């Protein structure tokens, strides 16, 4: 329980840490001790050497995700341009075959600014909350958010430039988005305007795709520039209040990524590719709390770590339904 609370706290900006002796399970402790024996160390070194000699490159989840993001956003675009009424609206609020959908963050801001409860918005928000509770909260980020895809491409450029030594990644405090979440909620309430929508790249990109480009896209290009030249995944990691809301929604999600300590050789490939690497600190030698563990709620279920792990120590699972399915 305490370990779970720690994972929750990490989503709000807490530093990742080792589990204490009390939090660690006995099996995990034994396994870690076993992994520290010289024979095991030698075996792991051999495995890693072999991996480096014959690297396995998988992009299965990445491309699945790209298809998902493109298809979801294309449904919006096509609905309007071909007038097929599949998903009307934009990412902030829409109607999927007539069912209301509303982004929880945007809906909450509208409610705070307008100071009135609107039934359609409540219905839409509940639908979206239930949907993304199931798929894992921030799964919205990596499987639906149009900005995520742009940011992922910007990240690829950033990583290329970093490798060349032309740019450097500057980290920020992850608590920043929590502060921004409250500041923007307070601003919506105090000013009576949905202040955040003005700089919300998700809304801007989504509307630009559906209704045609606008001057506001310049802001999105600026953000992508920051991500390319200054800070890796700046918006998604440190800024986005929408991501935080989805993170909270997904704290008890059935769809999870599961970590298997017994298969892990602790080389850290997963942390290299991860959007939110603090959730994968458990894969460091000695950092796991149990022999199998669900990744922290901040995880976007993007699957990059699964693709990256040559040992298959990470994988998608349905929490509580493992035995049934």
């Amino acid at each position: 329980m305490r370990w779970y609370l720690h994972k929750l706290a990490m989503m709000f900006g807490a530093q990742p840490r080792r589990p204490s002796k009390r939090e660690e399970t006995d099996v995990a402790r034994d396994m870690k001790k076993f992994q520290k024996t010289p024979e095991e160390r030698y075996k792991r070194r051999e495995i890693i050497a072999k991996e480096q000699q014959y690297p396995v490159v998988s992009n299965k989840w990445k491309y699945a995700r790209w298809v998902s993001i493109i298809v979801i956003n294309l449904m919006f675009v096509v609905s309007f341009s071909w007038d097929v009424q599949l998903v009307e609206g934009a990412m902030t609020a829409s109607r999927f075959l007539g069912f209301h959908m509303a982004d929880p963050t945007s809906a909450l801001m509208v409610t705070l600014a307008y100071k009135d409860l609107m039934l359609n918005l409540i219905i839409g928000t509940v639908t979206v909350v239930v949907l993304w509770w199931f798929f894992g909260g921030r799964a919205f980020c990596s499987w639906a958010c149009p900005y995520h895809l742009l940011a992922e491409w910007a990240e690829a450029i950033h990583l290329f430039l970093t490798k060349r030594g032309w740019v450097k990644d500057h980290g920020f405090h992850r608590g920043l988005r929590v502060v921004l979440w409250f500041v923007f909620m307070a601003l919506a309430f105090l000013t009576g305007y949905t202040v955040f929508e003005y700089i919300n790249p998700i809304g801007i990109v989504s509307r630009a795709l559906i209704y045609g480009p606008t001057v506001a896209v310049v802001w999105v290009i600026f953000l992508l520039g920051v991500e390319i030249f200054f800070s890796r995944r700046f918006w998604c990691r440190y800024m986005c209040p929408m991501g935080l809301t989805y993170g909270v929604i997904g704290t008890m999600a059935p769809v999870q990524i599961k970590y298997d300590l017994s298969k892990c050789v602790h080389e850290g490939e997963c942390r290299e590719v991860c959007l939110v690497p603090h959730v994968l600190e458990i894969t460091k030698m000695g950092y796991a709390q149990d022999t199998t563990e669900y990744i922290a709620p901040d995880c976007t279920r993007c699957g990059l770590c699964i693709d990256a792990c040559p040992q298959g120590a990470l994988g998608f699972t349905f929490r509580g339904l493992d035995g049934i399915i």
Partner: protein
Amino acid sequence: MSETTPSPAPKRKKRLTRSQLERRRMIMRSLGAGTAAITAALVGWYPVANRLFDRLRPPGAIPEDEFLASCIKCGQCVQVCPVEAIVLGDGDEGYGLGVPYINARKQACDFSCDAVQCVLACPTGALSHEIAKKEEVTMGVARLARPDTCLAMKGEGFTGQVQGPDFDGLLRYTEIDRWTPIKVADHPYDLELCDLCVRECPIDDAISLVPLSSDPDEMRHIPTITDKCVGCGTCEMMCPVEPVAIIIDTEMSLEGAA
């Protein structure tokens, strides 16, 4: 820091400072980024506070400030409009970004949909669901802003296409097609006395032509707007002269004046 005394105490202090420095730099960066984001978001207040844009909001729009607050910027109203009269505001409009409005001269709301579809589509009630009929709409009020250019005021007729052959505007001509609006450019007129603002007005008794004098041969007429006018802007779109003689005083500007 004195470099002459290599005692362990200041050395430890220095190392601590270095690790703290990195963290402090990160915190400062975060504060800076947060401040920048909030400032950028607050920039949007300026055009709204100063009412830099006078926008004709779609049918059913509640008073401007509440409208900006309750609109979730999704554009569902844009999607259902059969004449695509509704467009979304851009970044220069501040908090009007993504908020729908109508450019009546380009494409007015002619109620082609009959049942105020945009109101039904609105997920938040920014377009008030209390409105069910076009007669209940209050978007603004038409006003003869330039009587000197008005053809009816001069007693003149109109022949040809309203706003020229390249005009993209749509209008539903019930006598031609009850359901589908057609291009205004495809519907040329030949009028002895220009009465387009009255002829194409979708609201009954909202506007009429009143002779300027009691002389039976009087050709000069003044378009007279009644309180039935909902401000849909069809007269503004259909006015054949340039600059346009009749315009809509938006609810927004009327609010501001009141």
